[in-house]
């Protein structure tokens, strides 16, 4: 493994985080905005308000959501031993969005602070468990993708249905948000909703490294090495559900991050899933932060969705993977 990879990725993420803080419709000077970021108490003027209440939560969420998606993608690919596994493609994000939308529209989210992330987590959990059961570590790429298509189509349709039936006239137009994701105008409240959930998921997934490494040798070999496969499966399913659930509850379903990032980083860290996990978390954070900066630069006043950019990068990549897979099977 290349030892420089993790520090370099961390540096990249730090740079993009700073960039995210400095980009916005209000043109603020560099020094001014950074000073405003740490201003407190009586000095909190309008600039401080913008930096602390508008841009900081956006940058933090970019970091958290990206890390959650990158990490989940790496864990799923390791566990399912399938390069096409990804929270967006197997329907986890869409199911988390369905859970979040149900919590919001039934008023549960307003009644209890934990209801929103809990419902998103439940939605994500059901879909991961379902796909893992259908495709499983032994399942081929085809079963995985077909199960994923079915789950995401169903979840997307139900999300659209719930939003169309909402008494709120704006709800129906937000189908796009739940399917494409966006970080626009999120506040610290959203950070507090997402962070604990994503943190929990990351902790669970971090424990799976050794098991995933062993699993590369095959299930029997992994069991012979003392890996409890049932526990590993539970940790992956719960970890992915918590991370993707937390991320989707506040940012909508952002696709392709979990697919592209592990693939780009795998050659750099070697083929060990355990090494890929932290690298993918950082890589995912970098990708989402970069996409969110691009969104604001390309169309500052349009609320262009994050998923648009990640799909523009991710979908050709996905086709390329399928192409290679086809060549290998032929």
């Amino acid at each position, binding site marked *: 493994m290349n030892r420089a990879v993790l520090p370099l990725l961390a540096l990249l993420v730090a740079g993009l985080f700073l960039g995210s803080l400095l980009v916005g419709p209000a043109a603020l000077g560099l020094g001014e905005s950074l000073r405003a970021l740490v201003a407190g108490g009586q000095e909190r003027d309008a600039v401080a*308000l913008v930096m602390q209440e508008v841009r900081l939560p956006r940058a933090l969420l970019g970091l958290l959501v990206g890390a959650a998606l990158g990490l989940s993608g790496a864990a799923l690919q390791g566990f399912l031993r399938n390069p096409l596994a990804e929270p967006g493609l197997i329907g986890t994000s869409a199911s988390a969005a369905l859970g979040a939308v149900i919590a919001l529209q039934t008023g549960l989210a307003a009644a209890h602070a934990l209801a929103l992330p809990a419902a998103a987590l439940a939605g994500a959990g059901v879909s991961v468990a379902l796909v893992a059961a259908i495709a499983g570590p032994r399942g081929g790429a085809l079963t995985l993708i077909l199960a994923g298509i079915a789950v995401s189509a169903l979840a997307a349709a139900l999300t659209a249905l719930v939003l169309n039936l909402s*008494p709120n006239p704006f*709800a129906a137009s937000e189908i796009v948000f739940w399917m494409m994701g966006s970080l626009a105008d999120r506040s610290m409240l959203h950070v507090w909703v997402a962070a604990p959930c994503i943190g929990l998921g990351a902790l669970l997934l971090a424990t799976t490294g050794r098991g995933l490494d062993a699993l590369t040798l095959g299930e029997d070999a992994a069991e012979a090495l003392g890996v409890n496969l049932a526990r590993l499966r539970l940790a992956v399913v719960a970890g992915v559900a918590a991370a993707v659930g937390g991320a989707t509850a506040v940012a909508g379903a952002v696709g392709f991050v979990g697919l592209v990032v592990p693939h780009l980083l795998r050659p750099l860290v070697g083929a060990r899933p355990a090494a890929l996990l932290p690298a993918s978390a950082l890589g995912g954070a970098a990708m989402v932060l970069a996409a969110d900066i691009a969104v604001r630069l390309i169309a500052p006043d349009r609320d262009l969705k994050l998923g648009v950019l990640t799909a523009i990068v991710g979908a050709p990549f996905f086709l390329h993977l399928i192409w290679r897979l086809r060549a290998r099977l032929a």
Partner: protein
Amino acid sequence: MSVSRAASRALALALAPCLALAAPAAGAGEAAPPGPPARVVSINLCTDQLAMLLAAPGQLVAVSYLARDPRASTMPDAAMAHDITYGQAEEVFLRRPDLVLAGTYTTRATVELLRRLGVRVEELPVVESLQDVGTQMRAVGRLLGRPAEGERLAAAFEAGLAALRREVARRPRAALYYANGWTGGRASLAGEILAAAGFANVAEAGGILPLEQLLLARPELVITGEPYPGASRAEEILAHPALLPLRREGAIADAEWVCGLPGVLKAIARLGALQAEVAR
């Protein structure tokens, strides 16, 4: 209505577009029928309310469903006395109107289909200034064949508006902020209401105002609409923590300033009281 008549009516309606194609402008080109229209259907919230204020008893056959929504309409109770439509060409046509009142933003397809079916459709523009309010009241009065009623309503509005005008020592900076970050500029009915109440609008032009720019414009007051039931991300921006100390939710009922109606005066009076409170 008997089943067979309903069925034949439905069949006629289904065939109507074809017939209209075969004989273009069957009736559409005719001059407006002489005398006041006897069966008027309104499919726009603003014309609904003006028609309810101005029409003769029995003249107004149906209004839009929005007229019964207390959030959007200033006259939900009066609308209960009228039949409603959801603004679809089919239901409007089946009420055999000789005049349909629509807004210029009413679904184009509906208006065009009704015209092809030979129905007279009059479109009224969106009211964009206090001046337009009286103009539109008179216009609807004329269309309904009741110009005297239109003139009376407009004159009462203009007198009420003149009575509300007052000098203010200081104009507090205020912003109008709606779902999805939309703001009302100075050249809009809402903007003129704000100005008439003695506020200075921080937004020059209407449109999307990013939250950051709203905060940097340092408004003393942010006036938002009342949230709808259910949840939406579009309205979440109005509850952003950075806005909370500035926000006055529902200081004005949405219904009072979406249309050029007598209710506009109430909005100005209420905002005027708020102005006196903030300017102190």
